[in-house]
């Protein structure tokens, strides 16, 4: 039953995961929290693991959520749920509308879709910042988290370091200063 629940949940998410995996973070988060499977902080760790692995972030998150809920079979159910929509959509598109990317309506839809996805990701960022104590009233601790946040963002945007590298470096820093 739980396997079907996992599969079905990620199947539905798979069908709407436009614009790269990060837009799916608030969607998956809302589902796992509503089901009482995880807290936002636990889910942040899921994204950390997903970000350290190769492969799409949304698919990786699904696999890890599945694994945490029901072991290896859970991971398979969640992972397949997330990729089967790709298979179905590709077959439909390849058979019927090969030139979809040139279609006027598709381009117009993306005019509205892209800013919505930006909004979704912005919402996820603020929500995760709150749940992970970055926006707590000022203390040495919240200040240091903000500093790590700023340093990470700088490394990503200006130094163009790979996200996985930033995660690992941040982990080393955290192990040094918080223990």
């Amino acid at each position, binding site marked *: 039953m739980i396997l079907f629940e996992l599969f079905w949940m990620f199947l539905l998410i798979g069908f709407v995961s436009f614009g790269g995996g990060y837009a799916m973070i608030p969607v998956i988060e809302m589902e796992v929290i509503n089901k009482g499977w995880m807290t936002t902080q636990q889910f942040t760790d899921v994204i950390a693991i997903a970000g350290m692995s190769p492969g799409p972030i949304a698919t990786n998150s699904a696999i890890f959520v599945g694994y945490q809920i029901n072991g290896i079979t859970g991971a398979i159910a969640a992972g397949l749920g997330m990729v089967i929509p790709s298979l179905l959509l590709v077959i439909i598109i390849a058979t019927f509308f090969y030139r979809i990317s040139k279609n006027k309506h598709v381009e117009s839809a993306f005019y509205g879709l892209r800013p919505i996805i930006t909004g*979704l990701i*912005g919402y996820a960022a603020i929500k995760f910042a709150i749940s992970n104590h970055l926006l707590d009233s000022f203390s040495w601790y919240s200040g240091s988290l903000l500093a790590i946040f700023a340093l990470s*963002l700088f490394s990503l945007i200006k130094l163009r370091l790979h996200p996985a590298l*930033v995660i690992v470096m941040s982990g080393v820093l955290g192990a040094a200063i918080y223990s």
Partner: protein
Amino acid sequence: MKEETKKLFQIFWTFLKIGPVTFGGGYAMIPLIEREVVDKKKWINHADVTDVFAIAESIPGAIAINSSTFIGYRIGGIRGAIAALLGVFLPTFLIVVVLSIVFLQIQNNPKIEAAFQAIRASIVALIVYAGYMIGKTAIIDKTTLVISVGSMAILFFLHLHPVLIIFSGIILGILLVNVKRKLGYSVKIKKEKSTPAQQLECYMGDGI
């Protein structure tokens, strides 16, 4: 029959080798696909690869998964699509499962707990970075800025399900472009793509 099985296995194997490269995002696969699928195996040509990626980014799902499945379909029909999908999916699946097992074993170690306190702050940065990268191609005029901020506010205050917001974006986009055109405004619905390097850059944060 034997020929077909052999070909399906070849498709599976080719994408199994490409799978781990998706570390750099879906677009990092392009050079490898060009080498393995176009130059070596001659299954499809260069123009096909461009078309496939254009479609892979406009349908839901990860670009790496979509493009591999699409190429598999072009080579070997539905079975080819399944072979390519399993090939690209399997290595990353195994890596995530191994990392999950390791994480669940060591998460209560004080050093690891300390490391993850910092990592969580970096994950917030990673999400902001993804938003910034997509925002650069998404927010191209006042309308898109309003939609973006508006959707964020709606998610915060109305607690609507994000899927509803996604669908409203599709409808809103089609409506807005048509209304604006009817009113005689010229609508630039896409940011001009300048150089290939910049084009690639905007997908780095995509999650892929």
